[in-house]
């Protein structure tokens, strides 16, 4: 799976979980500072990514990821 596809699917999960418009979600967007993720939503995001990509991530490491771009890089390691 190429990075473009991973990014599109990450944006889709982010919009679903956080209830934000897709145009707000940029690679440099910080989940908390830019997209308003609350602590419970951070866990929902991790669960959403796992379901979207059918992967099982290291939760502690996943929760430490702060931006959309970093999430794409992190997920690509599992997908590819």
């Amino acid at each position, binding site marked *: 799976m190429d990075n473009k596809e991973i990014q599109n699917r990450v944006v889709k999960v982010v919009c679903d979980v*956080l209830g*934000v418009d897709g145009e*707000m979600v940029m690679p440099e967007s910080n989940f*908390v*500072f*830019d997209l*308003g993720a*609350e602590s*419970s939503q951070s866990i929902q995001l991790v669960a959403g990514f796992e379901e979207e990509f059918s992967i099982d991530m290291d939760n502690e490491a996943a929760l430490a990821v*702060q931006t959309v771009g970093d999430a794409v890089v992190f997920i690509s390691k599992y997908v590819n």
Partner: protein
Amino acid sequence: MAVQAPSQKARKDSPGISGAIEAVFSPRSVAVLGVTRTPGTVPYDIFHNILSSSYSGVLYPVAPGKRSIDSVRAYRYLTEIEDEVDLAVLVFPANVCEKALEHCVQKGVKAVIIISAGFREVGPQGASREKRIKEICDANGIAMIGPNCLGVINTDPAVSLNASFARKMPAKGHIAFLSQSGALCTAVLDYARGKGIGFSKFVSFGNKAGLTEMDLLEYLHDDEQTDVILLYLEELRNGRELIEVARRITRGAGAKPILAIKSGRTAQGARAAASHTGSLAGEDAICEAVFRDAGIIRVASIEELFNSAIMLAYQPLPKGDRLAIVTNAGGPGVMATDAAVRSGLGIAHFSDETAAKLRASLPAAANIKNPVDVIGDARCDRYMAAMEAVLADPAVDQMLVILTPQSMTDIEDIARGVREVHSRAEKPIACSFMGACDVAGGIDILQAAYIPHYILPEWACRAMTDVQRVIKWRCQPEEEPQAVPADQAAAAAIIDSLPAGYLREDQALAVLKAYGFSVPDYRLCRGVDEAVEFADRIGYPAVLRIVSPQVVHKFDVKGVALNLQSAKALRDAHRDMMAGVHAVVPDATIEGVIVRRMIPPGHEIILGAKRDAVFGPTLMFGLGGLFVEVFKDVTFALAPIGPAAAMRMIRDVKAYSVLEGARGTAPADVEAICQSLLRLSRLVTDFPRIAELDINPLLVWPVGQGGAVADVRIRLNGETQPQ
């Protein structure tokens, strides 16, 4: 990015920082950064508290991805707000606070409250995060409260700001509360609410990375809404600055009392150390000295804190300490009298006129002397007559009204009677309506009228005693440290030439001699013949003391021989000492023995000094032997001191009466001790390399005869250049 490089200048030099503190308490606009829509979470509750506290300014929620919070338009970023923002409250997780602060800088925010945890308190990573946010605030003149705090409350109706996650806005009052612990704040708010106590300002300052207790104390000194300042501290980082600031606040024009709890009283602060002073001068003992020197009334519990605070905040200061007690129960009256006397309060002796008034208005069985017992069946009229009579007596400075609830006691009427008397009185009044359920209505009336109420009369006496401490402190004259004469160059010649570690006894004695201490003639003798020759010259009885770098505690290795009456006795003692020391410390390098005359017996005094990392040079005084070993009966002060402070150190030990000549002994030469403390004060102030110093004992003789140093240990720290 708009964030400037961190300034090397101290925070206080930042331009406009004092004005920025105003923005913490009286902002014209507040933005809460990181608000959520979930009630019961810190970010939401803080926003909701500000919104529901009738805040007089404008509130902006910053909540990315949300159009509004509680129907208030939300902003994605602080920088999108069109108007000026004075105060930003950061409730974001710690890892984005730095980013949020950058926006604060861009927006020109004057002050921030960082509620978020996850800084210094969580370890090195958090500490470096805290360092960065502090640098940003310092460099940009932003006043910062926190991080890791509960927030700030200002009850001034002109502002009415509850920027905290406390459950409720407290009532308006004239007591300010500053706390390092956020969790304690909520408990204190609830406690105070139950007692009907209001606040002027309420501040949880958490890790105090930005504004410290000193900055906040200075602010409260000028705050017209605040009459009394309460402080809860877990750590003191700059004791000397606290003294300087607190002295300005607690004395002179516009003086305000400061009451403080410093936790950690029983912590294992007294580390094992080679010197007495080192082991006795734990953090808490020094804190005690710092608070005393700062005029801060240190209390042991929240109960005592508020007991004394309401007395100071609600009542005028008494002109003296003479207490009149009016009670309907003999037992509690006597208990209160005992407590008053124990606390050092005076018991008023009524005039004949007062006695006549009381006799005329009270039943024959009543006690018209102090404590006035109006008898168990007394109703309001009898209480009123007694209260009016004693308050009118010029020999009465303050009054305590005690009530126990009998079947005929009209509790609420009596409370209203006290309220009426209080409204006309110019003297302080306190009450103790003893009990819980039956007296509750009366207590409510008293509390609503700002009449201090205490469940137990003893607590009232304690609070009145704290008031006396405040008065005494204000009357205590300011004192400059006294520069006693000393040969500083002679001492420097020894100290500057030595590495870190203990001075040899002859070197230590020479340092003391240079500073004018009374030191008997001595010599470091390398062999027994030299020792005998010197002893023959100075006369017997003589003393031998081993000199070896491996031996610090000479008595422990039989390295001291006392009261040697002849040359033969000295030779025998020398032989035995060499054998004894080698037996206990086989690798000891023996450099010789100190020979001196036996010092005549006297009062054994211990004088000590320790350079504390936080507080600098500290002094210790105590009586030797059991008093210091078992009872730890010692006092401390921060050097330098003057004669009055030295005398306070001496008088404040519990065993002071021993020096005054207890059990028929001659009074000790206290003036000589005072002079020795002043010399010690100058010595440790002049030489920052002195890490620890023990004079133990200083033998002190009767008045006018002075004393002499019998033993001394001085340890130098590793700095090779004196400051």
